[in-house]
């Protein structure tokens, strides 16, 4: 298997999951898959592999370089953590779907050409929707369907872009594209849908909170970070990405602040952090690209940790609503502690992983002289503290004294969270493990006294704002509610339009059917009266109706063939 895309190990391996009897045997097998793929990837040399000819296209099914390696490794680590977190689940559909999903995301990262990318891109869409449907309730079914339409749509747009790209360049190699051509714009749109660009972001906050407890953790890792990888590969230094990223980072802050469902809060916060990565890719300097890649890796870890912690709360209490939670720190102390580690990483507190990666991007904005971008990213960084880092653990585990869960999270969940937390702290204390993996060799030390103190100031005063807002009753009250987002457009007026169009169509159809039949009958009656056996013109030539129409048809064919 010298030239296999590492993602295929998970995808093919997943096929055996339904056949394995018993939870423990299946568990051991599923743990072995990402470890096996990790070992296999380590043995592969850098370069392009697995080439074969399809018609006159040369496909490169595995390209190992610095950029794809970082994503490959972090995806495999996240897969392992996700598998551990889900070990208690008996439902094989989720396990198999999760592994195929992870495998296809890894496969897409190592794809050297657009055709391979497209294939894996669509498999991520189709496999991941089962993690949403596995909730097995009507809301999840509807949400999953909306998710699938948008995700597959992204793939179709990608394919269209690739066709134009092939026509223009005669190549399907996946390298830097640029937005000058129509092909480039289509491909950017396809990546943008998966990366939750503003106005294209709704599928994420719609579907992630509806997935199963363990499914959401997997979903939070792959789709969007695959899109970040694709942007870093195809569009580094594309300036339009800077305002897009800044918009993502800012508008989600307000939504995360007022949203009641804590998994949806995390979904909005996730989009906000994607904004930082997108802005970093837009800035395009080596430091900025490194920052985007590093922040993708750290973001995977701390969002997985936070989704795991809130998932454990949901698992034990049956709800993730801030309005219904609170005070769980006494009954779930370990989950609470691990959630706080995730929160400190999200807030980019020094000596946690988020500090390093965020510093890369913010410093890159400063070095490139983008004052407003720098201020916006700084503001978004402070806002994370009040809308996610403090909010999520506070409303779940503190806030009210009387909350109670049946017990602490299951052991496998605790182990998965503890390992993720360990990585969050480990990469913060020993950042070299991550920074030496990054695609560009740039010297940058985040741990200067200046940077540590200024970041602590930013976070501490943001925390002060949170405390004061709660104290003075200014912090938005958490209530069971629906917060309107742009999905309103297709879920309310869009639905009315669809209903109306459908009614209009059936009405038109009936009208047309009535009238044409009526009209045709009338024409026939007139003709029959004049040309029929008893008609004025038919008396001496009593041919039937059929012969007459045959003549008309043949005549029409003759006329048409000469036109």
């Amino acid at each position, binding site marked *: 298997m010298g030239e296999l895309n590492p993602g295929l190990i998970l995808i093919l391996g997943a096929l055996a999951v339904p056949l394995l009897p018993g939870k423990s045997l299946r568990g051991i097998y599923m743990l072995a898959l990402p470890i096996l793929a990790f070992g296999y990837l380590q043995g592969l040399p850098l370069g392009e592999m697995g080439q074969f000819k399809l018609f006159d296209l040369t496909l490169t099914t595995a390209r190992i370089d610095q950029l794809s390696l970082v994503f490959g490794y972090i995806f495999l680590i996240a897969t392992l953590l996700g598998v551990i977190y889900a070990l208690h689940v008996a439902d094989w559909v989720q396990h198999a779907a999760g592994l195929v999903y992870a495998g296809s995301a890894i496969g897409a990262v190592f794809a050297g050409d657009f055709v391979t990318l497209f294939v894996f891109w669509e498999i991520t869409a189709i496999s991941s929707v089962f993690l949403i449907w596995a909730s*097995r309730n009507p809301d999840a079914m509807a949400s999953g369907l909306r998710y699938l339409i948008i995700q597959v749509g992204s793939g179709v747009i990608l394919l269209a872009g690739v066709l134009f790209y092939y026509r223009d360049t005669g190549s399907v190699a996946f390298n830097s594209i640029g937005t000058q051509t129509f092909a480039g714009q289509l491909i950017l749109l396809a990546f943008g849908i998966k990366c939750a660009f503003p106005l294209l972001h709704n599928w994420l906050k719609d579907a992630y909170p509806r997935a*199963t*407890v363990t499914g959401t953790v997997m979903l939070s890792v792959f789709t969007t970070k695959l899109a970040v990888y694709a942007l870093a590969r195809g569009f580094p230094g594309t300036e339009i990405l800077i305002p897009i990223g800044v918009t993502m980072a800012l508008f989600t802050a*307000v939504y995360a*602040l*007022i949203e009641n469902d804590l998994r949806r809060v995390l979904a909005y916060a996730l989009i906000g952090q994607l904004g930082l990565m997108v802005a970093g890719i837009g800035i395009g300097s080596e430091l900025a690209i490194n920052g985007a890649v590093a922040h993708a890796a750290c973001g995977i870890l701390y969002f997985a940790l936070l989704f795991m912690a809130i998932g454990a709360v949901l*698992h*034990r*209490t*049956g*709800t993730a609503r801030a*309005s*219904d*939670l*609170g005070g*769980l720190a006494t009954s779930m102390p370990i989950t609470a502690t691990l959630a706080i580690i995730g929160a400190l990483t999200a807030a980019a507190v020094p000596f946690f992983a988020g500090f390093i990666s965020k510093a890369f991007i913010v410093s890159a904005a*400063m070095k490139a*002289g983008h*004052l407003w971008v720098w201020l916006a990213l*700084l503001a978004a960084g*402070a*806002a994370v503290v*009040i809308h996610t880092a403090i909010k999520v653990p*506070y409303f779940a585990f503190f*806030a*009210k*004294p*009387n*909350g*109670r869960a*049946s017990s602490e999270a299951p052991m496998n969940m605790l182990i998965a969270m503890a390992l993720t937390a360990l990585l969050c702290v480990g990469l913060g204390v020993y950042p070299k493990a991550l920074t030496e993996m990054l695609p560009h060799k740039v010297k940058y030390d985040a741990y200067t*006294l*200046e940077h540590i*103190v*200024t*970041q602590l*100031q*930013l*976070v*501490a*005063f*943001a*925390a*002060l*704002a949170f*405390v004061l*807002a*709660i*104290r003075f*009753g*200014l912090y*938005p*009250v*958490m*209530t*069971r509610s*629906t*917060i*309107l*987002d742009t999905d309103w457009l297709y879920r309310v007026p869009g639905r009315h339009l669809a209903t109306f169009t459908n009614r209009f169509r059936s009405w038109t159809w009936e009208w047309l059917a009535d009238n044409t039949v009526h009209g045709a009958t009338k024409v026939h009656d007139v003709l029959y009266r004049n040309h029929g056996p008893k008609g004025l013109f038919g008396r001496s030539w009593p041919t039937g109706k059929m012969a007459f129409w045959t003549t008309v048809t043949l005549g029409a064919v003759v006329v048409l063939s000469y036109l």
Partner: protein
Amino acid sequence: MAADHDPKPKTQSQTENGTGLNAPKIDNRIVLALGAICVALALVDPLIHKHGKFEIEHYVGFYAIFGFLACAAVVFAGIVMRVILMRSEDYYDG
């Protein structure tokens, strides 16, 4: 097949409205500790030499004030947007 979490919520804090006696609380000791940290960080600020290329960064207490104001802005934006965007939980079911 059932969902993979306990079907019935077991939390006892089922009050939906977080106001009055059920308003979220923060221990006074935590407020004081945070206040002390903030004061300490504000006091060391003039001692730190900043190397950034933007002039605004060199104002004393820039990061503290900016962080606080950014959060205050988000909170007030949240108060306004909540009024505009919030609907009942079953809004899309109708």
